[in-house]
C-alpha cells in the first residue's frame, strides 16, 4: 500500500485502534486534515482552543484507559496544548499529541507559526520526537504509542514538519505491529525476594496502613487491590488520584489522606507501624512536612517508576513493578504462608481508628437560605446514585467533590491532581462523555475555573456532548481566599470575582440549558432536573456560601497529626474529650 505521510498518519491511527482524536486545524497540518476528511473511521472532535484538545484527550484516556490523541498545528497550536500535556505528565496519563511543524527546510528560520515544539514540550513529556524522514513516520508513531502507554504512562509529542505530510509523496506503508526501543524496557514484575520480605513485614504489623494512588487505576489493578486489602483486613486510605480503586463506601476505606484528607486517615498515617504504599508517590500534598511523616512506620513502596521510590520518603522495602503483578504475587504469598496477622492488635488498631472516625471530620453546618458547597456535592451524589463520571477543576470545589462523592469504581473521578490545572474539568468531561455517551458525566467546577475553558461549551453543542456542569459559585477564588483568610489575616487580594457573567444567559447563548439555584430547598429539584435532561448540556449555577472552607487542613510545615479542624469539629472534639471517648 503506497500512502502519503498524511495518509500514513490516519491509516496508522486506524490500525492502532484509535477511534477519536481531538484537535484544531492550521497551516502546518492542512495536509493531515485533508486526509482526515476523506475517511470516517477516525472521528475528529473540533475543540475551540488547543488546551481543550489536550484536556479532552486526557479525560478520555483517564476514563477509558486507552491513550488520548490530539492533533494540533505548529506554533500557537502546540504551545496552547502544552498546559494539557503538562497536566497529563504530572498525573502519568497516556497521551499522543501530534503537532504540525513548519516545513523541514525552514525549521530554525523563525518561519510563520514556528516554535520548537520538541524543545518547548521537553520538560513536560515522557518523550518526544521530531519526524525528519517520511520513511520513519509510521515507526515513530508506533514508538510514541508504545512509550505513552507502557511503564509509567505519560504524554508523548510527535512533531511532524509539513513536507513530511505532502500528499504527492507516497511510500509503501505497513502497520508496524511491534516496536523495539533498546533503551526502554519497563519492568512490571516486582523482585520476588522483595515481595516476600514485604509480605513478612505486613503480616507482622500491629498497626498496618495501606496507602494507594493513581498507579492502581493506571495499571487496572483495582480488583487485585480489593482482594489484597480484604484478605488482610487492613485499613486503607487513597490519594486524590487513587479514589475509586478501592470502593469509597467500603468500611475498610477510611477516607482520602493528605492536606484535605479525613482526620482518621491522617491520624492513622501518623500512628501506623507498617505503611504499604502502592502506586503513589509521596507527593507534598500527601506527606505534609516530610521530617515528621509516618514517624513510627516501616515503609513498603511499590511503584513502576524506580525514580519515584525513595525520592522524598525513604522506602525500607522498595519494590519496582506494576501494581497489578505485584499485588497478585503478594496475594499468592499471603495465601501460601503460615504466618497470620495479629488479630488482637489489628482489632485494637481498628478501635483506635473508630474513635478518630467519630470526629466526622468533613461535617459542616447547614444554613437556611444559603447553600453550602458540600451539600451541593452530596446532592449530586444522591441524584446520580454515586454512579456518574465526575470531572473537576481545581480549588475548593475539587476537594469537596473528592470528599463527598464516594467513588466505588476506578476511572470515575477525573481531576488534575499533580499540576492542579484550572480549566481542566469541562474539556475532560467532554472526553469522558465521548467515550461513554450513555453515562452521566458531570463537571464539578467553580466560577473561576469554568471561565478558563468555557469556550468548549460550543464543542459540547456541536458533538452533542451532554455533560452536566455543577458550578459551585461563591464569587471568590475560593481556595486562594481560604489561604488568604488563614495565612494573610483575611487580606483578600484579587480573589473576588466581580462582573461575573450571567452564566444562565451565557450557556443559553451557547445553546444549552442554564439553571440557577440559590436556596438549599431548591437544590434537589434542580439537580434532578439537570440529570433528567439526558439530551441537553446543563449548566447548574449554584450560588453557595461565600466563606465556606475546606476542612480538615494540614498547613505547610505541619505533620499529619497537626491538622486544623473546623470550628464545628473543634467543639465536637472537646465534647468527645470530656466524655473520655477521644484519646
Amino acid at each position: 500500500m503506497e500512502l502519503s505521510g498524511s495518509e500514513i498518519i490516519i491509516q496508522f491511527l486506524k490500525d492502532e485502534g484509535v477511534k477519536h482524536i481531538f484537535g484544531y486545524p492550521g497551516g502546518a497540518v492542512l495536509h493531515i486534515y485533508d486526509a482526515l476528511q476523506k475517511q470516517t473511521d477516525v472521528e475528529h472532535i473540533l475543540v475551540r482552543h488547543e488546551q481543550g484538545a489536550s484536556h479532552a484527550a486526557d479525560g478520555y484516556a483517564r476514563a477509558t484507559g486507552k491513550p488520548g490523541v490530539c492533533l494540533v498545528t505548529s506554533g500557537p497550536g502546540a504551545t496552547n496544548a502544552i498546559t494539557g500535556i503538562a497536566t497529563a505528565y504530572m498525573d502519568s496519563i497516556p497521551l499522543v499529541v501530534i503537532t504540525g511543524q513548519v516545513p523541514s527546510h525552514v525549521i530554525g528560520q523563525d518561519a510563520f507559526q514556528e516554535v520548537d515544539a520538541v524543545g518547548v514540550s521537553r520538560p513536560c513529556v515522557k518523550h518526544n520526537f521530531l519526524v525528519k524522514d517520511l520513511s520513519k513516520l509510521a515507526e515513530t508513531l508506533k514508538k510514541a504509542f508504545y512509550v505513552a502507554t507502557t511503564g509509567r504512562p505519560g504524554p508523548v509529542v510527535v512533531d511532524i514538519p509539513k513536507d513530511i505530510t505532502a500528499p504527492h509523496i507516497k511510500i509503501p506503508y505497513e502497520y508496524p505491529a511491534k516496536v523495539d526501543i533498546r533503551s526502554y524496557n519497563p519492568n512490571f514484575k516486582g523482585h520476588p525476594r522483595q515481595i516476600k520480605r514485604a509480605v513478612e513485614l505486613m503480616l507482622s504489623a500491629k498497626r498496618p496502613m495501606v496507602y494507594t494512588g493513581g498507579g492502581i487505576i493506571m495499571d487496572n489493578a483495582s480488583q487485585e487491590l480489593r482482594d489484597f486489602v480484604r484478605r488482610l483486613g487492613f485499613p486503607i486510605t487513597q490519594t486524590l488520584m487513587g479514589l475509586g480503586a478501592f470502593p469509597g463506601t467500603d468500611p475498610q476505606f477510611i477516607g482520602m489522606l493528605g492536606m484535605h484528607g479525613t482526620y482518621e486517615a491522617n491520624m492513622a498515617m501518623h500512628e501506623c507501624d507498617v505503611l504499604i504504599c502502592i502506586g503513589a508517590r509521596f507527593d507534598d500534598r500527601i506527606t505534609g512536612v516530610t521530617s515528621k511523616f509516618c514517624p513510627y512506620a516501616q515503609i513498603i513502596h511499590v511503584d513502576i517508576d524506580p525514580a519515584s521510590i525513595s525520592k522524598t520518603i525513604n522506602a525500607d522495602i522498595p519494590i519496582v513493578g506494576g501494581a497489578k503483578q505485584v499485588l497478585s504475587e503478594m496475594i499468592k504469598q499471603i495465601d501460601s504462608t503460615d504466618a497470620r496477622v495479629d488479630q488482637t492488635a489489628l482489632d485494637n488498631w481498628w478501635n483506635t481508628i473508630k474513635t478518630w472516625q467519630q470526629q466526622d471530620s468533613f461535617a459542616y453546618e447547614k444554613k437556611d437560605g444559603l447553600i453550602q458547597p458540600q451539600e451541593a456535592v452530596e446532592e449530586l451524589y444522591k441524584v446520580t446514585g454515586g454512579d456518574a463520571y465526575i470531572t473537576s477543576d481545581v480549588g475548593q470545589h475539587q476537594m469537596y467533590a473528592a470528599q463527598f462523592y464516594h467513588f466505588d469504581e476506578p476511572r470515575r473521578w477525573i481531576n488534575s491532581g499533580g499540576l492542579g490545572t484550572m480549566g481542566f474539568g469541562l474539556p475532560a468531561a467532554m472526553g469522558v462523555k465521548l467515550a461513554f455517551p450513555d453515562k452521566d458525566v458531570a463537571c464539578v467546577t467553580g466560577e473561576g475555573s469554568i471561565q478558563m475553558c468555557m469556550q468548549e461549551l460550543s464543542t459540547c453543542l456541536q458533538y452533542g456532548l451532554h455533560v452536566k456542569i455543577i458550578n459551585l459559585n461563591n464569587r471568590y477564588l475560593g481556595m486562594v481566599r481560604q489561604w488568604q483568610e488563614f495565612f494573610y489575616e483575611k487580606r483578600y487580594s484579587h480573589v473576588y470575582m466581580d462582573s461575573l457573567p450571567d452564566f444562565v444567559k451565557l450557556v443559553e447563548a451557547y445553546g444549552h440549558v442554564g439553571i440557577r439555584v440559590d436556596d438549599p430547598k431548591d437544590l434537589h429539584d434542580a439537580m434532578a432536573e439537570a440529570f433528567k435532561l439526558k439530551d441537553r448540556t446543563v449548566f447548574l449555577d449554584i450560588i453557595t456560601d461565600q466563606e465556606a472552607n475546606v476542612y480538615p487542613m494540614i498547613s505547610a510545615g505541619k505533620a499529619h497529626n497537626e491538622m486544623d479542624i473546623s470550628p464545628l469539629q473543634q467543639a465536637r472534639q472537646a465534647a468527645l474529650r470530656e466524655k473520655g471517648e477521644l484519646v
Partner: protein
Amino acid sequence: MRHIISLLVENEAGALSRISGLFSARGYNIESLTVATTEDQTLSRMTIITTGSDRIIEQITKQLNKLIDVVKLQDFTEGNFIEREMMFVKVKAEGDTQRGEVKRLSDIFRARIIDVTDTTFCIELTGSGDKLDAYIRAMHENNIIEVVRSGSMGILRGEKALTL
C-alpha cells in the same frame, strides 16, 4: 560528594538537551559534561561529573535512566576507574627567563607545548582535574591568557566495560 557518571546515549539530536535539561529542571549540579560519538555511530558516550548527597545522586541516576535516550549508565565513583581531563593553556612567554620557566614547569607536569609564537606558548596537559588545577596554580596568574578544559572523562579499569 563528587560523582563521576558515565552514560551511553542514543546519538540523536536532542539527547544532550534532554540530559542537560534534566539537571537544570531538577536543580542538580553539573561540574562538567563531556560527550562524543563512539565507535558505534548510533551511540554517544557521555561523562558527567556531579556533586550531591547520596539521595540526590540516587535520584540523578534514576532520572537519567528514565530518559528514553539513555541506553546505559554507570556511576563509576565506588569502583575502580581512570579519570582524565585535557586542558589547553595559552600563556605569555616573553624573554628567555619567562620562556624557560614555562618550559620547565610544563616538563614537571609532563605537559606539551603545542604552539609557539614570539610572545606566547600554548600548552597541552592531560591528567586528573586536580593535576590541571595544580598546574594553573603553579603558573603565574598574570601569565595566563586563556584556559580551555575539556571536562573529565572516565573509563573502568580492567576487563569491565560500559558497553551494550
